[in-house]
């Protein structure tokens, strides 16, 4: 059985398609990543799976249970770590966990043990009786994950798990997420706009842009699809695009700014040849850099923009406006 199975899932906000007939499935025991810029429809997808909002059309099942027809059953086996701060900062860490173990109807005799296990696992045991408002950002996030473990979920949904954390807190959260998969076999669906996070964490990735899944596969597969490495060149003496096309796939060509990005099979070996032919055309090259392909490049290839580009932020704003304007 698949852990998550989505078929032609669509969510409309008035005439705006937040999620545009996507289909994907997540294998049991896997960390599955939805990667894309803000406003791509990742959070909407997670919220549909968690039965917080209803899809306009299409189906989604969690461990074979339909998210529309049997919402309460899906919620009983799912855990959720929202993007925003979701712990009650006016309660202690321990109380935050106690509250959720009660809301998941955990039998009384199991509660204490589960809470202590989660606290120790997330390295919060020594601060459990302090109010959560005194915690650091990383501790709050770990408490949120601990909270989502109170019902021992088969399926855990993490929305931007490391957003706003400093590098060391980020690494700690990543390690704990991976431990969950390795030790308990918990299946996870993670959304992120951080390429590096997706590469570190995920077994499988679906790249989302403007409500659609534009590519999917394992991180290695996706990078292999790129067909090689990227050479970035800066040169201001006229248009180099024709010359560069002879050497590989020209991904970016901005003669006005003098920047070009070229995909070639073996970057180290291609550079001398590229430089030679540019010099033969009397073009002075100011700088060259070589980059092994990353998921960001994969995203660029399929979505036609860099993930952190200004355009994508505008998309995010459009989504939020559409959500706010939505009537009824």
């Amino acid at each position, binding site marked *: 059985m698949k852990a998550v199975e989505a078929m032609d899932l669509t969510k409309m906000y008035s005439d705006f398609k937040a999620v545009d007939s996507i289909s994907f499935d997540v294998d049991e025991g896997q960390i599955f990543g939805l990667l894309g810029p803000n406003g791509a429809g990742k959070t909407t997808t997670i919220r549909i799976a968690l039965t917080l*909002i209803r899809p306009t059309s299409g189906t989604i099942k969690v461990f074979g249970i339909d998210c529309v027809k049997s919402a309460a059953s899906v919620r009983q086996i799912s855990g959720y770590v929202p993007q925003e701060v979701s712990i009650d900062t006016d309660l202690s860490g321990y*109380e935050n966990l106690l*509250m959720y173990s009660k*809301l998941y109807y955990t039998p009384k005799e199991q509660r204490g043990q589960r809470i202590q296990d989660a606290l120790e696992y997330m390295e919060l045991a020594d601060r459990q009786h302090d109010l959560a408002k005194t915690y650091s950002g990383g501790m709050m996030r770990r408490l949120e994950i601990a909270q989502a473990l109170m019902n021992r979920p088969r399926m855990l949904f993490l929305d931007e798990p490391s957003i706003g954390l400093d590098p060391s807190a980020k690494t700690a959260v990543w390690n704990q997420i991976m431990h969950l998969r390795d030790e308990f076999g918990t299946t996870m669906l993670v959304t992120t706009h951080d390429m590096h996070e997706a590469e570190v964490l995920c077994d499988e990735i679906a790249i989302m842009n403007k409500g659609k899944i534009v590519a999917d596969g394992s991180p290695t597969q996706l990078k292999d699809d790129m067909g090689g490495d990227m050479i970035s060149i800066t040169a201001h003496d006229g248009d180099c695009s024709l010359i560069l096309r002879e050497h590989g796939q020209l991904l970016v060509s901005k003669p006005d700014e003098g920047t070009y990005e070229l995909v070639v099979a073996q970057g180290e070996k291609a550079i001398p040849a590229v430089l030679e032919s540019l010099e033969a055309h009397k073009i002075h090259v100011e700088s060259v850099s070589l980059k092994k392909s990353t998921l960001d490049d994969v995203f660029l290839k399929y979505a036609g923009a860099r993930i952190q580009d200004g355009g994508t932020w505008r998309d995010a704003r459009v989504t939020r406006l559409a959500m706010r304007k939505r009537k009824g």
Partner: protein
Amino acid sequence: MAGCASHEISDEEAKRMIGSKFLRTVSTLAEFELRKLRHDSSEIFIRGVQPALWLLVFGTALTSIRAIDVGSFTYLQFLTPGVLSQSVMFVAVFYGIMLVWERDLGLLNKLLSTPAPRSAIVLGKAISAGVRGIFQAIVVFVLALIINVQLSLNPLDLIGVALVIVIAGMCFSCLSMCLAPIFKSREKMMGIGQAITMPLFFTSSAIYPINQMPGWLQIISAYNPLSYITDAMRALLLPGYVSNIPLDLGAGLLATAIFATIATILFRRILE
């Protein structure tokens, strides 16, 4: 036949499980409201300032002016139950604003991702408002005793008052939770909070007797839940005050039931 019987039992069991889940959710939400109050009760005292002004300034001034005829009671005696119910209403109306606030923070998403039934979440929050209302009322009540207002201290009466306060807290928190999914933003809800509390207060029997109001105001007052809440409190706290307590409680409960139902139906919309 045997198979049929066992099926019936499991059905009944399933129903009982849903019932117990409902109650467990409600009691959990109320329990953690109490825990929050225990961690930090300063808000209750800050919110006590306004009722204190009503009692100390407005109440004492009108008592000495004797502009309002309240029968055999002093005006302060008459006013105290009104200020009590008003302070509970102010606390309760805040729950709609808090709902929007929790939505913005992510707390509400998280809460709604548990198997807890939506109606139990609404009712749990409503009971929480009642619980907080009791503590708020204690502050006002003690203040009234300090300035020597003669009130009934009969334990049975006080238990009755606590019950009325819980109904009031539920009623007005459900009203504001009906409005939260419609207005959706914190700023609007702040405005709405102001826009409903003051009219509810001034069109109720909280500061003047209904029989002295102009005709049109009497009609409005008869549809205002705060009038019934205040009346019930007066009947319990002022020996000799005549009111139909079952009617008062019935009206409060009916309003609560209506608001709670609408809030449950609209609840999903707050996330979208």
